[in-house]
């Protein structure tokens, strides 16, 4: 299965999950679908048959509100049966709106409160290096999430300790809960911020799978951040770049229209 196949499947799952669960954040999930697809198809050294293998790469979904996309990619990668995805948001299920590890193989860290993933990722990377282990840690952040001070505390720490085994990816779609990142709390000059904190910065098109692969294949002495320019709601024309779809779930009619677009 190529990363393109995975991305297509993730988008379909996400649309169905948010429709049937009446859950939020479909735009955020579609935004990072390509990043997750490349990570799980081509980058992460993980084994669905042994999700706790000690030398696996660690992936932290720090933007936990896009949990539907993580659950979908884990199912596609074979960590659990994709039929379980219909339980998203259901009473009595474990597939909560925000990422939770309990009962879900392959989830490294429960998230949902923003700004938690990078500090934990720094801890994983620090300990891996201390223990002489070669596995790597990847953390996917939202752009709005970078409002959180703890992100920058961890950024300082990772650079100070030159954690070259840590990579962050920012899903930089430019929209957060109530508007653009720039009108909410300006991130720009965003790349300069990371550079000035001591990180290697790679700016890419976050929907270009080859570019994602190249950016994540690079190895540095320092921690690296991939600033992935993305489109919120990517793949569904009426959702793209609309802040409305941060919270709104697609109804049945909208689902049908959206599915016809993402299955192309």
């Amino acid at each position, binding site marked *: 299965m190529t990363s393109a196949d995975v991305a297509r499947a993730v988008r379909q799952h996400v649309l169905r999950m948010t429709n049937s669960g009446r859950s939020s954040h479909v735009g955020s999930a579609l935004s990072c679908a390509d990043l997750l697809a490349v990570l799980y198809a081509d980058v992460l050294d993980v084994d669905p048959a042994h999700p706790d293998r*000690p030398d696996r790469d*660690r992936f932290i979904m720090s933007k936990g509100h896009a949990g539907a996309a993580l659950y979908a990619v884990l199912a596609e990668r074979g960590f659990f049966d994709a039929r379980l995805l219909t339980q998203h948001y259901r009473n009595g299920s474990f597939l909560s709106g925000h990422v939770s*590890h309990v009962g879900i193989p392959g989830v*490294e*860290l*429960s*998230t*949902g*409160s923003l*700004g*938690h993933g*990078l*500090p*934990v*990722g*720094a*801890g*994983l*990377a*620090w*300990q*891996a290096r*201390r*223990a002489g282990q070669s596995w790597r840690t990847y953390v996917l952040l939202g752009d709005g999430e970078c409002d959180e*001070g*703890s992100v920058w*505390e*961890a950024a*300082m*720490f990772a650079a*100070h300790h030159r954690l070259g085994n840590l990579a962050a990816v920012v899903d930089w779609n430019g929209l957060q809960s109530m508007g653009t990142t720039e009108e909410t709390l300006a991130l720009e000059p965003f790349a300069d911020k990371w550079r000035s904190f001591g990180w290697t910065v790679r700016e890419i098109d976050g929907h270009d799978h080859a570019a994602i692969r190249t950016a994540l294949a690079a190895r540095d002495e320092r921690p690296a951040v991939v600033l992935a320019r993305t489109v919120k709601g990517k793949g569904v024309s009426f959702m793209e770049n609309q802040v409305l779809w941060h919270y709104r779930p697609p109804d049945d009619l909208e689902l049908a229209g959206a599915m016809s677009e993402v299955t192309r």
Partner: protein
Amino acid sequence: MRSQFFTDLLEAAAADPDIVFVTGDIGFGVVEEFQRRCPDQFVNAGVAEQNMTGLAAGIALAGARVFTYSIANFPTLRCLEQIRNDVAYHHADVTVVAVGGGLSYGALGMSHHATEDLAIMRAIPGLAVAAPGDAVETSAVMADLVANGGPAYLRLGKAGEPVVHHAPIQLCRGESIALRTGGDIALFSTGAILESALRAADLLAQAGVRADVRSFPWLDPLDTVAIHDAAHRYPTIVTVEEHSIIGGLGSAVAEILAEMPQSASLIRVALPPRFSSLVGDQEYLRGAHGLDPASITHRVLEQMEVNRGLACQIR
């Protein structure tokens, strides 16, 4: 208490390279030996407690055993959600250590009064909560934490408190310690106020009220058996703590007594649920807030008198 903590931590870390100590830039003059002897097991995370705690969770999830360290409310309240979500929910082997529990850093002001920590830490699922009464209890609690791990919260006093126990003690997690047998009332204490509680027991004895004295170095798990036993045995239980009256030992005991069909009356001696803007050292502030031995004694005798009066009226 602080010195004992570092002695025990260093001994444990020297024996187990998986033990990692993460400080939030606190410990000048006391952590250097650890840093020198176990350099690969030491990190100064800087003045960044959220990162310190998330980092600790990550280090623990990658297989190590972590102690985070700072003073007063910084390792707890400043990064409360990291303790709840990252450490406790993932059952990460992290022990959060705060030095300066209660009013230890009295004169430093309100920011440094750790007076709600036990209530807040006690409310987090899966987090053990310890507040030893002296250096000997600290050692007993540390032995357990080293053997059995976190998630846990360890509240220390400062350095150089009076030592109450004259010999090392062995303690299971959640056990309380009987210090004195009285016969009239039970007096429970948690944390570094223990020595004052004992002196209050002396004063009470002089006034004809002999107290069973018990120290509770563990608030979670809590020694419910000892509390039930005292409630069956005595008409009055007194709790003493250098903590807000909301949510600490007094509250924990009250919760247990309230669910018993018949129980002792409870006298909670604690700090009022108000901020203290008063400047003073620990001893001064304890006195000002009714936590010195004489005030504790007075409060207990007065309340017992009131209780007797109420009992008469009810009859």
